Structures are given as structure tokens and as C-alpha cells.
């Protein structure tokens, strides 16, 4: 098969070139390449042509931000070198515990909406200090 496949990789993807050979009768259906059937049963999800522009070509990439990022930034600004984060292990990082506490306190007293973040901030700090996490 390899002898007479046209070595022009830009003329089309490999499947269309081999199918063209079969259609033209140069390559009989029985000795089609080994991967041909597999390609037919599960074709690639993205079009394999070399010059096609895939989706989202040229569009800006979506930045990933969450609401708790604001709070986290404030926390980090205040406590620059709190305990280090170990990415591999699953231990809760200090900032995450801080955020969880913050959330808990916020839910405890949903009534006073006007309570500013500062108060909740101090409350969570006190709460954390109680159960032994030193904040530097």
C-alpha cells in the first residue's frame, strides 16, 4: 500500500487520500490498510485536515476567577507569609480554612446584610486563633 500512496500530505487527510485510492481502483477494497476499519468505526473527533481552523480560533481565552478570589486576595494581602501551601497533599491550606470559616460566619447571621466584610473578617480571625492556627 505504501508504494503507491501519493506522498502529498497537504492534498487531504490520510483517510480521504486512501479512500480516493480505493475509489480509483488503485487499491482494492480487500487490502485496504489495517487502520482503515478502525478509523471508520471511530473517526477522530476533531477534523484531521492540516489547514482547518479549529473552534475558538483567534478568540481570547476565558480567564478563570471565582468570587472567593477577592476575599482570598485580601486575606493574602494581610497575612503575606502564612503557613505554606503543599500542592500535592490534600491537607486544607490555611487560606481555604479561612474562607470556609468566613462562609460559616456569614451564614450564621444572614439577617444583618449591612454588616461589612471587615467585621466578618475579624470574627473569622478570632475564630481561627481560637482553634490554634497562628496567623502571621
Amino acid at each position, binding site marked *: 500500500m505504501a508504494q503507491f500512496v501519493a506522498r502529498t500530505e497537504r492534498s487531504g487527510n490520510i483517510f480521504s487520500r486512501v479512500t480516493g485510492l480505493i475509489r480509483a481502483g488503485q487499491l482494492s477494497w480487500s487490502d485496504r490498510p489495517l487502520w482503515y476499519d478502525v478509523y471508520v468505526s471511530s473517526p477522530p473527533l476533531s477534523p484531521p485536515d492540516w489547514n482547518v481552523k479549529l473552534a475558538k480560533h483567534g478568540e481570547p481565552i476565558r480567564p478563570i476567577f471565582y468570587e472567593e478570589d477577592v476575599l*482570598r486576595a485580601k486575606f*493574602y494581602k494581610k497575612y503575606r*507569609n502564612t503557613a*505554606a501551601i503543599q*500542592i500535592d497533599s*490534600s491537607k486544607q*491550606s490555611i487560606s*481555604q480554612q479561612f474562607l470556609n470559616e468566613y462562609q460559616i460566619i456569614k451564614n450564621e447571621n444572614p439577617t444583618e446584610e449591612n454588616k461589612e466584610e471587615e467585621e466578618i473578617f475579624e470574627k473569622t480571625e478570632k475564630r481561627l486563633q481560637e482553634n490554634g492556627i497562628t496567623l502571621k
Partner: protein
Amino acid sequence: MFRAIIRARPVKQFVECRAAYSTPESIIDFVDSVAETSESQNKSFASLLRHSKFMQLGDFNGRLVVGKIAQRIQDDLYIDFGLKFNAVCKAPSVGSESYRSGARVLIRLLDPELSERFLGSNKDLTLLEADAVLVRLLSNTNIARKPKVPAEKEADKPEIPAE
């Protein structure tokens, strides 16, 4: 958002994990990892990402991160701290013997990937390396570990350019 209660893991995996961890230090990891994997078995990628440590890092400049020394060549330390690339730091002159591969160190992460856009090129040139400053040694490994070490996979050294 309480943490979901730990569901019972399939026993086979449980036993096999316990055999692989023997030192005290890694038993704590093991317990945590069991909690973590069982809980995030069916989580979607979005929620996984949201709760991942990478997001908890916030902005990188100057964040204290715990890393493990993957490789040491003469006195360059390749520190693997969980992100895509290893940070390369110089071993300090004092007590540089204890900075062996496998030791845990504290580093201050400046940039997860050093990449620069030079004049006239439309793409950045990346060094495939993270930029970090070595702060101090956390735990030395070969004293704490028994000789039989659970086989941690270490990033190997780029071999001589055998082109």
C-alpha cells in the same frame, strides 16, 4: 459546605495503599489521600478545579509553597512543588549536604513558568522552568526514612544531549 463524609472505599484498593506506605510521615498523607480520592471520585472537572490547591494559591508572586527535591545535580536543585514545571534553585553553601533528592523544602514561588516575549516574535520563548527562591529545608528525608522507601517517582535528570 461541610466536607462529605468519607464513603467506604473498595477494600482491595485500601489494603494495597496501606502496604505501600510505611513511614509515619507518609501515613498521614495516606489517610488524607484516601479521604481526598474517595470524595472526589465523581466530582466534575469544574468543581475539582475550583477546590484545587492551584486556585487556593491565589496570585503567585511570593507565595510560600512546600516542594520536594526531585533531582540534584552538583548544586542545582530541581524542586517539584506540584505544578507543571520544576523550580531550579542553587543549594545553599551551608549544610548543602542535607539537600538530598526527596527532601521537603519551603520555597517562595515567583512565577510558575519563565517565558519571555522577545522583540519581533509573536510567541513567548519559554524556559520550561519555574522561578522560585529557596527559603529553608523542612524535613530531611534519609534520616526519617527507613532504607525501603515507597517508590516515589522522581523526575529524572535530562541526560547529556545525546543527539
